[in-house]
């Protein structure tokens, strides 16, 4: 038990030290910018199809479930649109999509950096005098923090459109009532709250796997383990921070 507790503190301390090293001035600004754009393409644009598919079906399921639950003459049908909108904006897009990205993007970051570690590429950077965390991790964190809010906004639109399309197709809601519902009592703060959450989750999704990859020791087996661990820990952290941020921003 004591070993596990000390291990947790050891990892928190080492993660903190790595983040401190990561946020140093990059060697050359134009190289940093180039790497950020490359990462935006890999981590952000590369995840777009997955985000779109998941969000559309997510919106569809929420609409059908809401219509099923609101099967009462006392509840207006436009409540289906309203429920879909709020569920998608408040929770499903920022949290669920971030959890899925933690799996897709997180495992790729951990395995990429882990492979670089075990094949001595990180040592090669250090020998050259390059600050390896700044060179490898900072562009990934910057890219994730910049692009994930856009992905989540796209996911919100896709979710709401998915709900509308599938809701109308399955005749659980009329187009007019759905559109009225998604506009009814709209609160801009909900979107701001979702975007704040997204930025924090983007930091977790990029930094936690980078940490696990950076301190990988051994061979390909350990790279696989780092990748798995990174997905597990970033998912748990997303859920914990989801609770903390919700309490702070909405309570």
């Amino acid at each position: 038990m004591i070993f596990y507790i000390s291990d947790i503190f050891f990892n928190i301390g080492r993660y903190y030290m790595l983040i401190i090293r990561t946020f140093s001035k990059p060697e050359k600004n134009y190289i940093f910018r180039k790497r950020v754009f490359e990462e935006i393409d890999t981590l952000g644009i590369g995840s777009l199809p997955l985000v779109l598919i998941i969000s559309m079906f997510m919106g569809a399921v929420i609409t059908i479930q809401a219509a099923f639950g609101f099967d009462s003459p006392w509840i207006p049908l436009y409540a289906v649109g309203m429920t879909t909108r709020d569920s998608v904006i408040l929770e499903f897009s920022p949290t669920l999509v971030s959890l899925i990205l933690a799996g897709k993007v997180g495992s790729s970051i951990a395995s990429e950096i882990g492979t670089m570690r075990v094949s001595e590429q990180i040592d090669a950077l250090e020998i050259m005098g390059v600050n390896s965390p700044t060179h490898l991790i900072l562009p990934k964190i910057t890219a994730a923090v910049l692009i994930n809010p856009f992905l989540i906004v796209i996911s919100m639109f896709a979710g709401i459109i998915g709900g509308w399309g599938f809701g109308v197709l399955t005749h659980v809601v009329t187009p007019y009532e759905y559109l009225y519902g998604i506009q009814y009592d709209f609160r801009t703060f909900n979107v701001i709250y979702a975007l704040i959450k997204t930025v924090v989750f983007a930091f977790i999704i990029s930094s936690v796997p980078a940490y696990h990859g950076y301190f990988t020791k051994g061979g390909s087996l350990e790279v696989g383990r780092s990748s798995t661990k990174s997905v597990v820990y970033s998912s748990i952290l997303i859920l914990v921070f989801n609770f903390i941020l919700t309490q702070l921003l909405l309570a």
Partner: protein
Amino acid sequence: MIEIRNISKSFGQKQVLKNISFAAEQGKTTLVIGESGHGKTVLMKCIVGLEEVDQGAIFYDTRNFSEMNTKQRKGIRKEMGMLFQGAALFDSLSAEENVAFPLSMFTDMSEEEKAERVNFCLKKVNLENANKLFPSELSGGMKKRVGIARAIALSPKYLFCDEPNSGLDPITSLVIDDLIKEITQELNITTIVNTHDMNSVMGIGDKVIFIYKGQKWWEGNSKDILHTDNKEVSAFVGTAKVLKELRK
């Protein structure tokens, strides 16, 4: 010149290096030899600062590397080149981009100047036609040669090679050895090579350090090593000689 003074290193309870001292001279190749698992790689990692020593000091031309802070070390690291056991090329970059990497990072060279320097380095290792190939498309020997080209791109004062011949056929090993010797003499740099290849010892070793159980067991030149009375060194050299005879 690199001077290693009484360095020791432990991992937990296990002492890997015990009180090692020697000097590597400029324009000469110093070979660190010994059986696998006796501390050669850890010694090299300590010399280049990838591992911190527990005791002792490392001097780069009178500059105490062990007492420097990260910023000061960065200055010296720009004077270092290293060839890793697996070459450690960046997978996402082509051969020429790998060689250009330190130039882009630490110089303000124009694209033309960089291209000229990259071509010079790749030509030096006889790889001028492989500049567009990626590491996954290169053979083991080619990777090592690109590794050497990258290591000399910034005209280093100190060159380190960790097992440059591991996994290579004897002919390619000779090519790599000749390259290391040529570069060391031509650029007048201080070179330290980790190896357990006796052919390298005889071919390029100006000075030989034999490491046994984490200690410096023997020091001399490549001619003396064949006639030493030291039991462990004789056993190491003898095995290599027997294998050589068997091959014949």
